[in-house]
C-alpha cells in the first residue's frame, strides 16, 4: 500500500521532471521571477536584523545624564540629590563619582590608549537618571528643567535617539511584513497562472483521465509537484541573491566600520531564515497550483 503510494508519487514526479526538461527556459524564467520577487523582502529583513543587532549593542535604559560642574561645592551636590529624591518624574537616580567613572573608562577596551595619555582625571561627578515617562518630549522638558539647577554643568539626553531608532526599526519590521505579504500574494498569482497555462495544454489528458476513473488527487498531483518545485527553486534563487547582496554590501560596510574603529559586519541570513524563505516559497507554490488545478477541475467537471 505504502509502496504503491510511493510509486504513484515517483510517477508524478518523473512526469513533472520530464515536462520541465522539455521546457527548461520556462522553468528558469519562473524560478528567476519568484527569486527576484522574494529577494526584495528578504533583503529588507536581513538589513533590519543587522540594524537591530547594531542598536541592541547600546544601553537603552538611562535617559538623562546629569554632569555636575567641576567646581560644584559639597552642599550644592547634596541639594541636587535631595531634589532628585523628591522629583515626581524620576524612577531611579544613581550617583557616579568622577573616580568611579575614571576607573571604568580606563578598563573599557579601545579607550585605554586615550586615558593613558592623560595626567589627571578630566571627568566630572554625574548622576544617571531614569525617567518615568518614555515620551521623548516629556524627557526633553525634564532635561531643560535640570539644566537650570545650580551646580549642573550639563544635562544630556542619552537614549532618546535609540528609542527613536527602535521605533523606526519596529516600523521597518511592519513594512517588511506588509511587503512580504503583498509579494507573496503576487507569487500566488504568478504560480497559479503558470500552472493554469500548463493545465490548458494538458486539458485533453485531464478530461480523458477523468472519464476513465482518475481521482482528483491523481490529476492534481503532478501540478502540485510542479508548483512546489517552482517554489523551492524560486526560494533557493532568492537565497542566492540575498547571500550575494550581503557579500557585496559587506565589502563597503566593513570598510566603513573600520573608520569608526568597529568590526561590525553584516551577518549572512541564518539557517532559520534560509529555511523559512525556501519553505515559505515552496508553500506558496503549492497553494498557488492547488487553487489553479481545483478551478480547472471545476470547469471540466460535468458529471
Amino acid at each position, binding site marked *: 500500500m505504502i509502496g*504503491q503510494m510511493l*510509486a*504513484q508519487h*515517483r*510517477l508524478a514526479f518523473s512526469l513533472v521532471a520530464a515536462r520541465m526538461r522539455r521546457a527548461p527556459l520556462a522553468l528558469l524564467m519562473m524560478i528567476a521571477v519568484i527569486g527576484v520577487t522574494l529577494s526584495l523582502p528578504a533583503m529588507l529583513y536581513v538589513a533590519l536584523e543587522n540594524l537591530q543587532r547594531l542598536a541592541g549593542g547600546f544601553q537603552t535604559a538611562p535617559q538623562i545624564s546629569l554632569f555636575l560642574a567641576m567646581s560644584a561645592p559639597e552642599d550644592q551636590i547634596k541639594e541636587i540629590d535631595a531634589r532628585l529624591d523628591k522629583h515626581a518624574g524620576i524612577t531611579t537616580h544613581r550617583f557616579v563619582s568622577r573616580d568611579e567613572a575614571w576607573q571604568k573608562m580606563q578598563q573599557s577596551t579601545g579607550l585605554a590608549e586615550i586615558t593613558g595619555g592623560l595626567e589627571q582625571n578630566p571627568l566630572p561627578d554625574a548622576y544617571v537618571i531614569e525617567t518615568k515617562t518614555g515620551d521623548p518630549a516629556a524627557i526633553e522638558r525634564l532635561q531643560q528643567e535640570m539644566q537650570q539647577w545650580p551646580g549642573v554643568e550639563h544635562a544630556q539626553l542619552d537614549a532618546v535617539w535609540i528609542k527613536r531608532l527602535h521605533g523606526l526599526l519596529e516600523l521597518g519590521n511592519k513594512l517588511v511584513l506588509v511587503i512580504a505579504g503583498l509579494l507573496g500574494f503576487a507569487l500566488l498569482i504568478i504560480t497559479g497562472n503558470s500552472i493554469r497555462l500548463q493545465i490548458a495544454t494538458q486539458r*485533453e*489528458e485531464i*478530461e*480523458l*483521465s*477523468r*472519464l*476513465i*476513473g*482518475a*481521482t482528483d488527487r*491523481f490529476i492534481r498531483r503532478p501540478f502540485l509537484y510542479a508548483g512546489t518545485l517552482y517554489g523551492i527553486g524560486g526560494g533557493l534563487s532568492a537565497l542566492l541573491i540575498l547571500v550575494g547582496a550581503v557579500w557585496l554590501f559587506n565589502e563597503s560596510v566593513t570598510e566603513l566600520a573600520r573608520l569608526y574603529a568597529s568590526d561590525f559586519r553584516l551577518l549572512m541570513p541564518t539557517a532559520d531564515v534560509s529555511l523559512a524563505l525556501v519553505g515559505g516559497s515552496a508553500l506558496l507554490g503549492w497553494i498557488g497550483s492547488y487553487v489553479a488545478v481545483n478551478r480547472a477541475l471545476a470547469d471540466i467537471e*460535468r*458529471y
Partner: protein
Amino acid sequence: MIKFDRVGKLYPGGYEALKNLSFEIEKGELVFVTGHSGAGKSTLLKLIAALERPTAGTVLIGNQNVSKLRRAAVPFLRRKFGLVFQDHKLLYDRTVFDNVALPLHINGVVGHEAGKRIRAALDKVGLLSREKAMPITLSGGEQQRLAIARAVVSRPAILIADEPTANLDETYASEIMKLFHSFHQVGVTVLIATHDAHGSMEFGGRTLHLAQGELR
C-alpha cells in the same frame, strides 16, 4: 450486472435522449446497441459507464445505484469499465506505449508490472512492434486498435465501445469486431453501439434496438 429500471435522460434545454428504459445485461454477455444516429446509443453507454447521471429511474451496476453514488466514489466505479470512445480520444503528445499506460497509472499500477501488461495488451491488438510510435503516424484501423488496447489494459469486467467501426473500411471493421468477440469469449461483458445492424449478426449476442430514445 447492469440493470436499467425505467431510466430517462433529459438534457438541459428539454431534449429527451432516453425514455422509460428498462433492461438487464448479464455478466459475460455480448450486447449490440443499434439504432440510427440520435437514437440515444451514446447516451445509453454514458449512463452505464457513469459518465452521466440519469434524470429518471435507476441504473444499477453490480449492486451500486449510479444515481445515488457520491461524487468521490464515481472514479472507482468508472475503473470497472474499459471504454472505446467514438472519437478515440488518443493523446497525440506521447507514444503508443504511454497512451496505453495511462489507465494503469490511474489504477496505481506502475513500473515493471505495468510494462508487462501494456505489452500484453499491445500484443493482443497487434501493435507490439509499434510501441514507440506516435499515434499520429498510425493508420485509422491501428488507432482504433490502440484505443482498444488502452480500454482493456487494466482488465476491466465490462468493455464498452461507441461506434468502434464507424470510420473504417470493411476489412478493418471485421478485424475490430473479431477482436471484441475474442474478449467476449474470455468472459468479458461487451457492449457495442453500432448503427450498422447486419455487422453484429455474425457474432451472435443480443441486440438492443433504440429508436427515439426508446427500446423497440
